[in-house]
């Protein structure tokens, strides 16, 4: 049996270890280079210029998606909500692809803004539609909306010329492979703004654990927090999409992992959720780039392959609990 302190602080150990593994492990054995004194400069250059932007972007995108998932799950009072399920990621992807094709010279700094516009549009549409319905309806509508948005994205891709196509395709599958340092710094800037905001907001969301009526008694302006949280979730999802395309299932799995080990108050969950999201994404990226070594599999693909079985198990477990 793990002691309470170990359970509560596990992520503080897990994240640095994963970060270290992802920074040091790769096609070149960097640890050996680091230990040999004459090649230390080369090794530092390798880590700083090639691996650091990628690892940083993966960690930040994962943390953003995890936090977005936590916000959505709390606000919707629905443990299945996730930015990739309810149309935020696909909406952002559509907007970014549209921007890429309309203005091929646009700099990567604008991707998060375009993604935010698309993500907010997708998320708000679904939020409006699912108001007053049960939790499952949100997911089902999200599945429908997602397939429409991905059909539209696919059509934009067909209309694109072949030179842009390859770049957009790898980006859409959720890959960190083609990431440039400039893009990673843009992600860092956006995440430095949005992640602390999300953490602060989570401190106010505890009343959402109760039912709507009791929550309103504790917190009079719940509607305002709800819209703020939804907007912030859209923003976080859009930042992640602008960095790495559509990464599914992080926003779903990270809050559940955190909830297994921590008390279920959103304020206490925010930090572990970010850490687990970052860890998951880093692991997926690391697996994707080292499993079939010359071929780089997108992290989004690895997440789908790993995430679906976990999600299915989660659903089965929940149904068992309900006694259906």
């Amino acid at each position, binding site marked *: 049996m793990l002691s309470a302190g170990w359970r509560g602080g596990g992520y503080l150990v897990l994240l640095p270890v994963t970060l270290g593994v992802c920074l040091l492990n790769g096609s070149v054995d960097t640890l050996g280079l680091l230990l040999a004194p004459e090649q230390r400069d080369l090794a530092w250059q390798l880590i700083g210029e090639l691996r650091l932007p990628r690892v940083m972007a993966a960690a930040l995108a994962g943390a953003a998606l995890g936090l977005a998932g936590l916000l959505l799950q709390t606000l919707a009072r629905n443990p299945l909500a996730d930015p990739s399920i309810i149309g935020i990621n696909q909406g952002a992807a559509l907007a970014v692809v549209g921007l890429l094709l309309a203005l091929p010279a646009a700099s990567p700094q604008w991707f998060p803004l375009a993604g935010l516009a698309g993500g907010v549009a997708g998320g708000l549409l679904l939020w409006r*539609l*699912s108001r*007053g*319905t*049960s939790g*499952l*309806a949100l*997911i*089902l*509508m999200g*599945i*429908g*909306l997602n*397939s*429409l948005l991905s*059909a*539209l994205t*696919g*059509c934009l891709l*067909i*209309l694109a010329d072949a030179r842009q196509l390859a770049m957009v395709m790898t980006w859409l*599958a959720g890959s960190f492979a083609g990431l440039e340092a400039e893009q990673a710094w843009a992600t860092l800037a956006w995440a430095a703004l949005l992640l602390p905001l999300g953490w602060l907001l989570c401190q106010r969301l505890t009343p959402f654990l109760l039912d709507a009526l009791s929550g309103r008694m504790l917190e009079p302006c719940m509607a305002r927090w709800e819209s703020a949280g939804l907007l912030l979730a859209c923003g976080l999802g859009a930042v992640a999409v602008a960095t790495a395309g559509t990464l*599914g299932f992080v926003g779903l799995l990270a809050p559940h992992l955190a909830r297994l080990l921590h008390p279920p108050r959103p304020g206490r969950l925010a930090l572990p959720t970010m850490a687990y999201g970052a860890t998951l994404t880093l692991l997926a990226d690391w697996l994707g780039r080292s499993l*079939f070594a010359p*071929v780089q*599999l*997108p992290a989004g*693909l690895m997440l*789908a*392959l790993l995430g*679906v*079985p976990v*999600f*299915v198990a989660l*659903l*089965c477990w929940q*149904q*068992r609990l309900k006694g*259906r």
Partner: protein
Amino acid sequence: MSLIDRRRAWLPWLLLGLFALATLTGPQRPELAAWWRWVWAGGDARAPLEALVLTELYLPRWQVALLIGAALGSAGCLLQRLTANPLASPGLLGLNQGAALGLVCLLVSPWPFTPMGAWLAAVVGAAVAMLLVFGIVRLATGGLAIDGLLLFGALFGTLLGALVTLVLLIDQHALDVIRFWLAGSLAQVVPSQIGPLALVVIPTLAVALLVSRPLEILETGRDTAASLGVDPRLVLLGVAALVLLLTAAAVAVSGPILFAGLVVPHMARFWLGDRLWRQLLGSMLLGALLLLTADALILRLDDQDRLPPSLALSLMGVPWFLWLVRRRYLAC
């Protein structure tokens, strides 16, 4: 009572009219008059170019659209009646992605890629997906509730789609062969595929019409059906097999075309009524007409023929789906 309610007879004519409008006003419209003069003159002389365009380019495409539309529409109708839910459709239950995975596996395997082999691979893939989805839902929830089916169908659809992407990323050669097929387009269809497709689809549709009566009896309840001499398990297996055959035949030729199976049965119910054989017949006819019209409209919009007809179907089907879900769950 006649077969068609007079007030609702306009539905297929609307589709036909749209199809004619889209085809005849397009920039590359078929020269019907030239074709007719050639046929009227006996048709044996050297055919003019306009007639060749019609017979070699348009007719095969129309035939394939009709067959695939009928197959997908009736598969959706059978699936909706089988699961007693208006939200079911082959695309949403992961069958399309299963068929796609089967095809991709055949493509990277050493076996030859023939139309018959492709169809078999698609059937096997769709069957595996169906077994997976229905089996897991049954195991997890102890029943076949539709929300579970849709949720798990979408999940396994994602998983199978990810596997397809995985195989295609590892084998670049397969991606080049199959890229256009994956979008669900009718542009890549060759005339030699029509024969096998018709050979599969038409007898299966006939069997589906025959099986509609036992299925309707089964809808009244398992015990009633058993006491009337209908074996419930046999009917379930038979209808599931029909759905698989139809979906796999359509997917093997044209790639995954979503939402035809969702929308068409509702239109057919509106047009011909609630009885199963009427709805099934209506699904066949309307499915065929709908895919034909969607293809013609998309061709009209993009005269280089790059967009798939599934775009038009998604644009129409998704709002419909959202509305159905909202109406169904609003009360709870």
